[in-house]
C-alpha cells in the first residue's frame, strides 16, 4: 500500500502528460508522413515526401534565417540589459524606496502580454506615431520611417519590440542571483585590491553562471517559439521579411489547410528544439562538474 502511494499521487500528471504531450507528438509525426490529413478522411502514407517539400522550399530557409536573427539578437540584448539593470538595482548607493520604485517600473513590460505589447508598439511605430515625431523633430531622420512595413526595418523592429518585452525576466532572475552572492567574496576581492571590473569578471560572473545558463536556454527556446508578437505586428510581412518558423508553420496549417506539410515543418522545429535543449543541458552538467 505504502509503495503505491507515489504512483497514486502522480496519476493525474501521468495521464495528462501521456494524453496531451506524448500522444499528440506521436500524432503529429504520423501526420507528417501522410498526405492531406484532417482535410481528407483516408490519407495515404507518403514517407518523407513532406519533409523534402519543406526543406527544399525557399520560404523555409528565409524563416530559419529570420528566426536566427530574431532569437540571437533578443537573447544577447536581453542578457546585457537584464544584467545591467540588475546590477544598477543591486547597488547599495540607492535608497530602498527608490530601488523598489525603479524595480516596479523595470518589470512593467513583462506584465503586458505579447498581444498587448504588439498593439502598443504598432501605435508607437506608426508612420504618424510618436517615435517618428521625435526622430523627425530632432533631425535624425527626414521622412517618417515605416518601421514595421519597410523591408529593411521590419525584422529589426520586431526584434527590438521583443527585447523590450522580454528583458525583465532576465533582470529579475539575475537580481535574485546577485542578492545570493555572499558579500565576503567581494570583501576578500577588495582586500586583494581587485578593481570593480575584475570583481565583476572573477566574482560576479562565475557566481551567476548557472543562472545565466538556465536563463539563456529558456530564452532561446521561448524566442524561437515566439508567434504572437510577430503575428500581431507584421503577420510575417512585408512579403516574408519577418516570417519566422512558427508563423511559417501556422500559415501552412491554418491559412492553406495543408496540415501534412505543416506537421513536417513542426516536427523539424521540434527536433531542432530538442537538440538545442539536450546540447545545453549537457553543457550545464559539464559546467557544474568542473
Amino acid at each position: 500500500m505504502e509503495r503505491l502511494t507515489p504512483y497514486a499521487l502522480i496519476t493525474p500528471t501521468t495521464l495528462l502528460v501521456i494524453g496531451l504531450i506524448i500522444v499528440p507528438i506521436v500524432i503529429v509525426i504520423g501526420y507528417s508522413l501522410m498526405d492531406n490529413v484532417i482535410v481528407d478522411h483516408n490519407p495515404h502514407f507518403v514517407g518523407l515526401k513532406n519533409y523534402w517539400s519543406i526543406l527544399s522550399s525557399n520560404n523555409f530557409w528565409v524563416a530559419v534565417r529570420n528566426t536566427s536573427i530574431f532569437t540571437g539578437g533578443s537573447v544577447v540584448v536581453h542578457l546585457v540589459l537584464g544584467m545591467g539593470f540588475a546590477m544598477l538595482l543591486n547597488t547599495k548607493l540607492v535608497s530602498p524606496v527608490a530601488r523598489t520604485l525603479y524595480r516596479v517600473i523595470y518589470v512593467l513590460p513583462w506584465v503586458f502580454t505579447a498581444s498587448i505589447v504588439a498593439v502598443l508598439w504598432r501605435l508607437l511605430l506608426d508612420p504618424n506615431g510618436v517615435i517618428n515625431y521625435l526622430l523627425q523633430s530632432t533631425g535624425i531622420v527626414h521622412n517618417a520611417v515605416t518601421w514595421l512595413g519597410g523591408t529593411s526595418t521590419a525584422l529589426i523592429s520586431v526584434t527590438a519590440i521583443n527585447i523590450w518585452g522580454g528583458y525583465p525576466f532576465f533582470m529579475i532572475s539575475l537580481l535574485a542571483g546577485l542578492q545570493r552572492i555572499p558579500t565576503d567574496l567581494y570583501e576578500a576581492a577588495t582586500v586583494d585590491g581587485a578593481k570593480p571590473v575584475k570583481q565583476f569578471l572573477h566574482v560576479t560572473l562565475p557566481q551567476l553562471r548557472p543562472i545565466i545558463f538556465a536563463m539563456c536556454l529558456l530564452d532561446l527556446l521561448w524566442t524561437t517559439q515566439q508567434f504572437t508578437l510577430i503575428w500581431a505586428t507584421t503577420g510575417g510581412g512585408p512579403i516574408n521579411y519577418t516570417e519566422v518558423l512558427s508563423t511559417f508553420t501556422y500559415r501552412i496549417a491554418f491559412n492553406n489547410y495543408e496540415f501534412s506539410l505543416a506537421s513536417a515543418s513542426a516536427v523539424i522545429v521540434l527536433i531542432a528544439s530538442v537538440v538545442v535543449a539536450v546540447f545545453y543541458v549537457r553543457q550545464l552538467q559539464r559546467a557544474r562538474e568542473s
Partner: protein
Amino acid sequence: MSVSVTANSRRDAAARRAVGRRIVKKFWVYVGLTAGALFAGLPVLWMLSSSFKSNSAIFEYPPKLIDSTFSLSAYRAVLSSSQSLRFFLNSYVIALSVTALTLIVALHTAYAFSRYRFRLKGVLNVIIIGSQAVPPVALLIPYFGLMVSLHLYNSYQGLILTYIILTLPYAIIMMTAYIDGLPRELDEAAKMDGARPLTTLWRVLVPICGPGLVSTGLYTFMISWNEYLFALTLTQTNNMRTVPVGIQLLMGENNFQWNQVMAISILGCIPVLVLFLIFQRHFIQGLASGAVKS
C-alpha cells in the same frame, strides 16, 4: 605638532575625495537607473495617455501626453460593449479554472517528487523538464485534430485542458522546489501519528505552502490569461474569444478605434499587474528557485 596637522589635513582631503567619488558614482547610478526607467516606462505611459484621448487626437501633431480631448469615453465604450465584456468573462473563467486545477495536480505530483522514491520518477522528471522544449506550434496541429474529434473545439473545456498542460510542467518544478525547502520532520511526525499520506499533505504541508502556492498560482494565472496562439486556433466564434485574441479582433476591424484598443489593453493587463504588485516578492523567489533547480 605641525607634522600631525598636515597628516590630519591629508586624511581629511582623502576622506573628502572618497565622499566626492561616492557622490559622483551615486549620480551616475541614478542617471543609469532613470534612463532605464524611461526606456521601460515611457511606452506604457504613452499607452495610458492614448487611452484617454479621442480617437482623432491619437496621431495629433505635435503629440501631447495629455490633450484637450482627455476623457474616459474609450473606457466607457469598452465597458458598455457586451462583446468586450464577454472577452473578459471568458478570460476569467478560463484562467481561474486553469489556476485551480493546475495547482491541485502540481501539488500532489510535487509532494510525490519531494517525499517519495519511486521507479517512474526519473522518466517523469525528464519528460516534465523536456516538455518545455516542445514548441507550441508542434502541439497545435494535433490538438486541433483532437479537439475537433472530441467535440471540444470552440469550448471552455478544450482551452482549459490545453492550458493545464502548458502550465503544469513549470508549476510542478516550482512546487517541488518549494516543498523540498520544508522540513521533513513535519510530515514524518504526522506519519508517526498514523496520518495517511493525503491527510499529511493537506493538513500538515498545505497550510505552510502559502508562498509556494501563491507564486505557482500567479505564474499559472499569468500564462493562461496571456495565451494567444491556442486561444486563436481552438476557438471559432467571437463569444468564445479571450482578451488577447479579442484585442487583435478589434484591431482587425475596419476603422478600429485606437483609443478603445488602448483602453481594453490597459483593462486587460490590470489583473496580472495587481496580482504581481501584491505578490511580487514571493513570485520572484518562486520563479528563480524553479529556474535554478531545473
